[in-house]
């Protein structure tokens, strides 16, 4: 984008610095909370690639993180594998494979069909983990041990140590940000942006949009898998609820709340949602009422998220470049083109 200042990357750097320094001052409980935020932020960033950059609204993203989590738990509990690289490869591989299959079916559709099909396929994955006894059933399973990185008999990283985990998660956040930043600037990311703005024209310029969408699905799935891996290690627990569509909807909210298509937005959104939930939950048992009202309010008055709000308040020009809520969805556009074609006939 033209003349866009480096405000967002700088904001991200400041956030990461804050997170890195937080354990020096923060109470143990809040350090745990921040770790949760970091993992959720990675999850939301991975979805941002689809929603914010490519314009693909999906409601089955938890299927990928959940798959990674379950594969990790199974390998640790049933095979006794705690080797960090091996677990990561397996978890991400499984998540990527799930994304490839679900993506292959889904990218043939768009708009509302895409939402419905990803929701339905995501629930299929949910039932797979819920019903097949091997995975531990409806109540979920606890992780018997935490992964560790050893080399020549020396333990370099032991994720059972909360502080080690904290900084590993933070490093992953930075890594994922850097990766997505790079991808978004590369020709690949430019095509994704083209697909979001005008899919038909992108195709007419010679880009195989299906293939790009599928690749975006797989990349997003892999990164969601990383988030799922970190989450199961963080909480030491995985259950079908982690794969449920409510989880997918929640991470979508995180993306919108922060501001989609910005990469920093998901971090801010994750922090806002986790802290808000904690606050509401302390206030009343009916905290979901307030979360629900909050979500509705965001949709109606804050469509460009907190980043957009900050932009508006700070009169920062780039905020206007964020995606407009009024933008037509791909479906209605497609329908229009079809009608035009027929109308001329």
């Amino acid at each position, binding site marked *: 984008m033209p003349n866009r200042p480096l405000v967002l990357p700088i904001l991200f750097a400041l956030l990461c610095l804050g997170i890195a320094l937080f354990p020096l001052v923060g109470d143990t409980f809040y350090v745990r909370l921040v770790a949760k935020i970091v993992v959720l932020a990675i999850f939301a960033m991975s979805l941002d690639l689809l929603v914010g950059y490519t314009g693909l609204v999906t409601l089955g993203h938890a299927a990928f993180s959940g798959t990674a989590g379950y594969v990790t738990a199974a390998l640790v509990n049933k095979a006794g594998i705690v080797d960090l690289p091996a677990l990561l490869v397996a978890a991400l591989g499984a998540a990527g494979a799930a994304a490839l299959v679900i993506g292959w079916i889904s990218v043939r559709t768009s708009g509302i069909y895409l*939402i419905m099909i990803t*929701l*339905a396929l995501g629930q299929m994955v949910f039932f797979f983990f819920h*019903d097949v006894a091997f995975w531990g059933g409806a109540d979920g399973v606890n992780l018997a041990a935490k992964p560790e990185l050893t080399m020549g008999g020396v333990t370099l990283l032991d994720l059972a140590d909360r502080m080690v985990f904290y900084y590993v998660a933070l490093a992953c956040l930075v890594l994922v940000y850097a990766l997505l930043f790079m991808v978004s600037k590369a020709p690949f990311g430019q095509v994704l942006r083209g697909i979001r703005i005008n899919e038909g024209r992108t195709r007419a310029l010679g880009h195989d949009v299906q293939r790009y969408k599928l690749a975006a699905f797989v990349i997003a799935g892999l990164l969601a898998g990383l988030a799922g891996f970190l989450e199961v290690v963080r909480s030491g627990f995985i259950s079908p609820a982690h794969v449920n569509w409510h989880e997918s*909807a929640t991470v979508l909210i995180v993306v919108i709340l922060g501001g989609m298509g910005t990469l920093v937005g998901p971090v801010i959104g994750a922090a806002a949602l986790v802290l808000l939930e904690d606050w509401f939950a302390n206030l009343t048992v009916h905290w979901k*009422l307030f979360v629900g009202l909050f979500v509705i309010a*965001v949709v109606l008055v804050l469509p460009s998220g907190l980043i957009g709000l900050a932009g508006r308040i700070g009169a920062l020009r780039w905020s206007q470049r964020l995606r407009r809520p009024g933008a*037509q*969805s791909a479906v209605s556009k497609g329908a229009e083109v079809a009608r035009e074609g027929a109308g001329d006939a």
Partner: protein
Amino acid sequence: MLPGARRDRRPTDTPAGRWCTATRPGGSTSTVASTCAAFLSIGPDGSFGMDASISYLIQILNGVQYGFLLFLVASGLTLVFGIMGVVNLAHGAFYMVGAYLAFWLSTVTGSFALAILIGVPISVLLGLVVERIGFTHLYHRDHLYQVLFTFGLILVIGELRAILWGNDVHGVAVPPLLSGSVALTETQSYPIYRLFISVACLAAAVVLAAVIKTTRLGMMIRASATNREMVQVLGLNVDRLFMVVFGLGIGLAAFAGMIAAPVSSVHPGMGDEILIVSFVVVVIGGVGSIMGAFWGAMLIGLADTFGAVLLPGAGGAVVYALMALVLAWRPNGLFAGR
């Protein structure tokens, strides 16, 4: 469905054989014998038996009854999308609201019929309020915002329900007139109320079809489902049409929740459960198609029922496996593009 999948029946001592022989000495030998023969010939699992056949008949009735309920919910979902272009994730929440209203009103008024008569208008009214306050702002916005808005709505409706009626599971008594069962064999019978559900849903479906086929409103619905701009061109009041369609959808969902309450009991998660299955129905049938919703609902109703008993432990997956099959075959559903 898949009779061969049934494994653990012992052919030698199926009760059915006994039933046939035991009855034969009675008066109407020939008819019983021929009936037995008829059932024997279609004996579903390689074993022979009347009981088994009767049980299959009952399972089909169960599946169809569930299918009818699904149809009422899914048709509203697909109508609201086809005509208004809105994804309503909160559709299931209105099903749940209907069920809780049935519980509450039938306790207050003492009459289930009265509860339905009062409850449906209340739900529709609630739906219209939501439509006016929220949905009107969303018609021209990306589906993304519709998804999030209606997800927020699910949370809000769910918590309001918790505040009003708590989180307990409630039973709703079957109205005395419809309680009791039709005895089919020594141990097998079919509850009258379930027949009533099927009949009531069928009636609602017929009325819906008649409205869409013959009335001016139906003409508008058909027109706008094909081409939304056309309605505006024809000078019809789109605003009012949207209200009517949304109200109709909510009314159907709430009505389904109400008549389902006595058999499925009333619990907080019911809206979510029916929503997901309805989505599957809509996806299988083809988004926006009423016919698709009907056949999709029947397919899922039967698959779910037979999956539950034939593949205990993997019943939940049957529905989704079916969906995956249909999508692999027809990515836009069975009745896509009308």
